[in-house]
């Protein structure tokens, strides 16, 4: 079934079309949410919210981009907002036990390069991490990322360049080993 026809049927209230749309796109949405959240419960929450919003706003989809890109823009927006909320809650809950004395590095707790890389990706600023995950991990094009994040593809390229530079910087000490 063609995308346009599928959308028309969903808008007409056809439940099987809703399910078909969901089946066609859920993997990509869930993968992105999980990559960004790193947590099953949150990834499910963000995926659920993405499809609820998508179904309620489908009449506003103009077809300028593909449905997949449009869903991606909702997914990344929902996920980033959700993660910001989690971060705010975590910041409030940080206790004295979590305090790391100055001068004590985290290196000793990090066994290998891959773990360190994952940590460095986690530590990237939100915008950089989103672009890095979408491009280098999930294989989105800069055009898709630009459309999803509502930015120019050139901005996406610049953000990716900076993200990689940050990662290179964060892992620089391993080069000496």
């Amino acid at each position, binding site marked *: 079934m063609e995308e346009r026809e599928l959308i028309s049927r969903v808008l007409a209230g056809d439940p099987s079309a809703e*399910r078909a749309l*969901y*089946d066609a796109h*859920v*993997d990509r949405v*869930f*993968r992105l949410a*999980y*990559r*960004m*959240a*790193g947590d*099953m419960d949150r*990834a*499910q929450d963000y*995926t*659920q919210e993405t*499809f*609820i919003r998508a*179904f*309620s*706003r489908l009449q506003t989809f103009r077809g300028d981009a593909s449905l997949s890109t449009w869903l991606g*823009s909702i997914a990344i*927006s929902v996920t980033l*907002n959700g993660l*910001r*909320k989690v971060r*705010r809650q975590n910041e409030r809950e940080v206790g004295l036990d979590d305090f790391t004395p100055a001068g004590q590095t985290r290196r000793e707790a990090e066994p290998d*390069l*891959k773990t360190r*890389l*994952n940590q460095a*990706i986690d530590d990237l600023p939100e*915008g950089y991490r989103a672009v*890095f*995950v979408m491009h*280098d*991990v999930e294989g989105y094009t800069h055009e898709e990322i630009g459309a999803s*994040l*509502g*930015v*120019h593809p*050139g*901005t996406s390229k*610049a*953000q990716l360049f900076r993200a*990689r530079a940050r*990662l*290179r910087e964060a*892992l*620089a000490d*391993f*080069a000496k080993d």
Partner: protein
Amino acid sequence: MMDDRFDDLLRDSAPEYNDPPETPREELWQRIVAAREAERAASKEKTEGADGERSHILPFRRLGRVRPGRPLTWAAGIAAVLALGIGLGRMSVKQPASVAISAPVPSSSAPAPRATGAAYRVATTEHLSQSEAFLTLFRTSVRGKEGNERLASATARQLLATNRLLLDSPAAADARTRLLLQDLELVLAEIAQLSPQPKSRDLQLITEGLEQGGVLSRLRTAVPAGTSATQGAL
């Protein structure tokens, strides 16, 4: 670390970052169906009948009908910002700023490169000034819970278009300006994508993002004090 080693590491290891398990399709679908049914039931209770249905389709009108006496803070604010921008543009440049940005056409009395550079600077300063005014107004409105997000979204889209033109122009040759324009683009894009009736937490997250990224303070630093800064620049 050597660049090629680092690239190899990224290529090999990045796909393992938060490697997702299989999608729990059925479980998720059941949750989505249940949530949508609950939403529909709540919406039905809230709107009570056909008038409610109509107002759901036209939230902007409903807003005006529910609170008819409400001051049009947003409209007045945006009109003032646009008027300021148009006024500054007429006073400071002989050609429309957009023409100067997209295609400076040489002629017999063509401006020297220095003047063209000044035109970009004027256009950039005007844009940053308008963006700063808009974002300040947006933040104030969100705090006062009096915003008209549809209008804010429309204004953000206009500013976003100018922002993209400037990013693609020599105005972005300066690294600091480019960085500011790129960060501004992300904020404007977030506001432009707001739904007509956004959740208050979405609005709050945008304003928090504004403050955490220091976009407003950087805009204020980038915009010379007083509007006279843009006058006579050419």
